[in-house]
């Protein structure tokens, strides 16, 4: 009984704030104090907020490009980690997952400055690719190690060249793991604040950065509305990813 109660309290602590944000995004009042009435108007206002739209666009572009690149590189890393019993590669690929984000942010910033790179969309993308590769690699590796190695041998045995075997057998069977990893990379990129904060430049502000700069003044219903949308997007993507690769989410 006590267990159930404490569990309920923990979940309340986690989710009540989120529910309040969602609720107040529909509240017909400038103040986040009391419920006045239902309205869509804050969502309508968002559509006319140029800065917000630009930030959203940046976020989507960065997330799409970095997820795409991380998926490609992470897949290759995952396959390599499975095929060759390398010691260094897993360390290199997985370290960014374990490393504190602030450290990643600072070190990437130092790097970009050292190579004289202008901070902007490209620097943010590079940073996001760096920390996403590990997640894709993990997801692909989980999938590949649950694959029967006899399938690849059977394909070769039945006349497939190594490349055809990869294209017709390995790749289709890995696809759920690859997609799950890619979607993970997408949500990580969309939601990231710390690393983006260090690596973004003028005009490359993303949604989380935009929300932060608005909150510095006040938590307006518009912030609630954009947060709700961001939450919704993340939720959908993560649900799809977990459907594709149940093992990945069980393992973590």
């Amino acid at each position, binding site marked *: 009984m006590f267990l159930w109660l404490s569990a309920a309290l923990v979940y309340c602590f986690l989710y009540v704030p989120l529910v309040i944000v969602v609720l107040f995004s529909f509240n017909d009042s400038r103040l986040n104090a009391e419920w006045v009435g239902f309205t869509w108007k804050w969502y309508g206002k968002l559509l006319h907020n140029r800065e917000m739209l630009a930030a959203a666009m940046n976020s989507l572009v960065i997330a799409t490009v970095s997820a795409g690149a991380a998926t490609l590189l992470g897949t290759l890393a995952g396959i390599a980690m499975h095929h060759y019993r390398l010691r260094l590669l897993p360390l290199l690929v997985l370290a960014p997952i374990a490393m504190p984000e602030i450290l990643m942010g600072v070190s990437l910033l130092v790097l970009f400055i050292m190579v004289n790179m202008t901070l902007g969309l490209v620097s943010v993308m590079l940073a996001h690719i760096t920390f996403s590769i590990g997640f894709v690699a993990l997801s692909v590796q989980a999938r590949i190690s649950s694959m*029967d190695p006899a*399938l690849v*041998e*059977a394909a*070769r045995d039945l*006349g497939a060249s190594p490349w055809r075997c990869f294209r017709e*057998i390995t790749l289709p069977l890995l696809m759920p793991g690859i997609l799950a990893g890619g979607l993970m990379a997408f949500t990580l990129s969309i939601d990231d604040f710390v690393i983006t904060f260090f690596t973004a430049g003028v005009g490359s502000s993303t949604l989380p950065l935009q929300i932060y700069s608005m909150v510095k003044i006040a938590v307006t219903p518009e912030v609630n509305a954009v947060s709700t949308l961001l939450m919704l997007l993340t939720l959908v993507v993560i649900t799809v990813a977990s459907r594709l690769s149940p093992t990945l989410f069980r393992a973590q």
Partner: protein
Amino acid sequence: MEILDLLEIVDVSRRFDAFLALDRVSLQIEAGEFFTLLGPSGCGKTTLLRLIAGFDQADGGDILLDGKSIIATPPEYRPLHTIFQNYALFPHMTVAENIAFPLRMAGCAKKEIQSRVGEALENVRLPDKAGKYPDSLSGGQKQRIAIARALVNRPRLLLLDEPLSALDAKLSEQMQLELINLQKDIGITFIYVTHDQSEALALSHRIAVMDHGRIAQVDAPSRLYGYPNSRFVADFIGKCNVLAGHVREQQGDCVTVELDGLGPVHVCRSETNFGVGSRCALTLRPEKIRIGRFSSIPGASDTMTSMSVADTVSPLGDESHFTGYVHDLLYLGDVTVYNVTLSNGILLETLLANSASGRTNFFEVGDRVEVAWSCDAGHLVLD
């Protein structure tokens, strides 16, 4: 017509770090043969099969197909296919797509693929499964689809890696018969890997018994059973009593052996020349031993127990007799196994068919019994 060796394995070795999996193995396998590699786990039989298939590289030696070396040929260019232990059907392809795979890889035309896949499905009597995915098939059906897929583009050789081990006993027996008939019908060479000696005896034309990376003996099943060339083969194939001793004298194929603790016996079925004094072992199948009540055997013809023995009379009319006690017995329905303790403490396994009369269990534990075997019942091996 000249019979060519289809597959020749010459001095093939394979080492995994410190473990020598194959130690200079040589074999000749003929066209149309059902050939089995038999041995306990770790004996190298699967390693050898993987080398033939091309999944693994030998450290030395050569593999020749029709006289041409294939040792450097990648698996996709070898005209042979493998049935894997768990069938390795592609889970993301339907049954029809699985069977079409080798044809597609070979670049067959769409129409031809379609007709040959249909034909293959008919042959394994599963035409209604074409659109199903492998996950929805039973073990026996998966097996048949795997066979259909492996045979659809008519390989020269079929390699089978313990294909029946995942099936239950009854289904396995049924599949054994199917495999025998299939091999007879299509006439291509089967190389079959198993650790199950009864499976090997039932299926094969010839069997290579392997032990610790070497070939212990290559022979037809009946020869392996009747004329094992070592204690290991005798022990591994069927049940066998092994009595140690040394050679006292040899005249032609008749050897007098002094069995340790039992005294001299005659063995009249030897094909090798044993040096006088050399250590040897008499291998004796349980069903070749007669068992009877004490002092009943000398005039054996009127006792019921004599019916358990094939009616053979050795040229010398020579029989070996020993007395002992029934140590324990195992009633198996059709037969009862009696373990008899002989005077020197050796336990001898004997077998008595219960069909001989309405009675079962002729003897009880502790009964004094006599055992006997004719001089051509046992087989002598060097020890």
